[in-house]
């Protein structure tokens, strides 16, 4: 199986007992949602997902060198 290298970034309280940034190798057809699930982050708590600085969805498949950023629901201004 071909492995793809990706980077995962976490923000706000998603970092608690996890990490800020981690490089991973993932298999074919792995989606953004699979990564979220593997981190035991409740999908309901996810506010924003960005893939290479663009908004994305749980169903998006990951590609080589993708940078995935996972944010809880946050706001400010």
């Amino acid at each position, binding site marked *: 199986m071909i492995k793809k290298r990706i980077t995962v970034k976490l923000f706000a309280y998603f970092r608690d007992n996890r990490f800020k940034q981690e490089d991973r190798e993932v298999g074919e057809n792995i989606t953004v949602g699979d990564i979220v699930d593997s981190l035991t982050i409740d999908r309901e708590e996810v506010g924003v997902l960005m893939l290479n*600085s663009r*908004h994305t969805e749980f169903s998006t498949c990951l590609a080589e060198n993708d940078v995935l950023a996972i*944010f809880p629901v946050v706001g400010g*201004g």
Partner: protein
Amino acid sequence: MADKIYRVNMTDLTSTIEEVPAAWAGHGGRGLTSTIVAAEVEPTCHPLGPKNKLVFAPGLLSGTVAANSGRLSIGAKSPLTGTIKESNAGGTASQLLARAGCKALIIEGQPKGDTWYSLALTPDGVTINEEKELIGQGNFRVVETLAKRLEGKPGIITIGQAGEMRMGSANISIKDPDGGLRSSGRGGLGAVMGAKKIKFIAIDPKDGKVAIANPEKFKEANRTFAKALVDHPVSQALGQYGTNVLVNIINEAGGLPTRNFSTGQFAGHESISGETMHDTILQRGGKIKHNCHPGCVIQCSQVFNDAKGEKLTSGFEYESIWAMGADCCVENLDHIAEADKLMDDIGLDTIETSVAMGVAMEAGVLPFGDGAGVCRILKEEVAKGTGLGRIIGNGAGSVGRAYGITRVPVVKNQAIPAYDPRAIKGIGITYATSTQGADHTMGYTIATNILNVGGKVDPLTKEGQVELSRNLQIATAAIDSTGMCLFIAFAALDDAKCLPALIDLINARFNLSLTGDDVVNLGKYILRTERAFNTAAGFTSADDRLPEFFYTEPLPPHNVVFDFSGKEIDTFWNF
């Protein structure tokens, strides 16, 4: 207590209490300040002359126990933009003014001599007193001195040296429950107060209370309203990380204006982020949560201590941290906090002044990243009113003109805040069309463009942005009239119970039967009133544009420009 209009004439040093005209009765906050400014101020007048008027108005619900209702609106013709202006802030003054029975305080005229004054407002009226001791002093000295001089816990509205010197970045500060300051920052309203020769206003409502027409209904509506606020996850995140949680997400989206708006990501983002600030506050024994006015259930403010554990600043906001941080490339959060405290003390808008510093850095006045240099210039140049200090204190546009710089991020001469309009296009429409110059709070499209609150609109495409900005600007104008903090909007956008509960609160307070349509119509009326003032002042649709460089310089990492035609922008006003 029946609400009255308190009017102070600084030309002949008299004051009166007037009945509320029927046309003003249904208004509060921004709706009232803009209505009064539009009715009574000549649009072409000089903002620092005797014909301008400075108007203070608590919101429709201020002074009641309604959650988050303590915002005070301040309006005038802006010396920075030349447009109509409303700037609102927390602190205790709004609730105390409402309890004193003051629906609006209108300050007009101008004294002829060099004498400075203070005002004392009680339910009996306003007294005008000569002030000597505090002239030339910063806002913190004003608040500390008055805590000893005055009895009880009066509300305090004050200007620092910047307001006294009538600088375009001068804010008006409002004392918070703990003796800290909240700021009506934008548009140089502190210069208008300085031009009226008023150093501070003290408010003592005595035993005044706000009358509620239907107390039971009010209580019930407030319970529903407060629950909607508390339950929304954004409210919870704001309490934990403050507004500065945005640094990392706006950076990730490629829309964090960096190095005087030359790129959309800041390499030092992590060191100035909300996450780092949260951990630093915990390590140093500061306060993660703090309310800027009594009754706030969100508590996005905080107390940030220095390395010795002493209070350095409070109300340390994303916009200030972005401006001094990413835009000036300062990575040291302590330098940013020190600069924040200095600007609060001198009485400067942190957005305008920090963006001005970024333009000054581009001009070579000081290097990018020089946080210590920023603090030095604030203390030794701006606070003392040197030539350089006055150039910076008059805002980003002033620095650009003085040094011949073309990358000057302003609309209607007001500095653009913390979201680059090339990478987040909805906010560009707000900056361009706002009746008050570039201001994110006028129609906060970031909620929907970036945060997925109130739906989703892709920040990098043009589709849907004008409509999004229009709907938000209309809703915001209405919310700004209630005395509510704008952060109720996150819950209002997502929770179907929130907005009806807010309308129920207004209906129960005044025995009215307003509907959602009335609220939308109120927002439209306010925008149209403000725009009519600007048109009469000489503004045209050609002023509703972004600076040239946003159309010509692609912004990394997305390498995008702002690509709305003038015609497309102008469709904003099709309502």
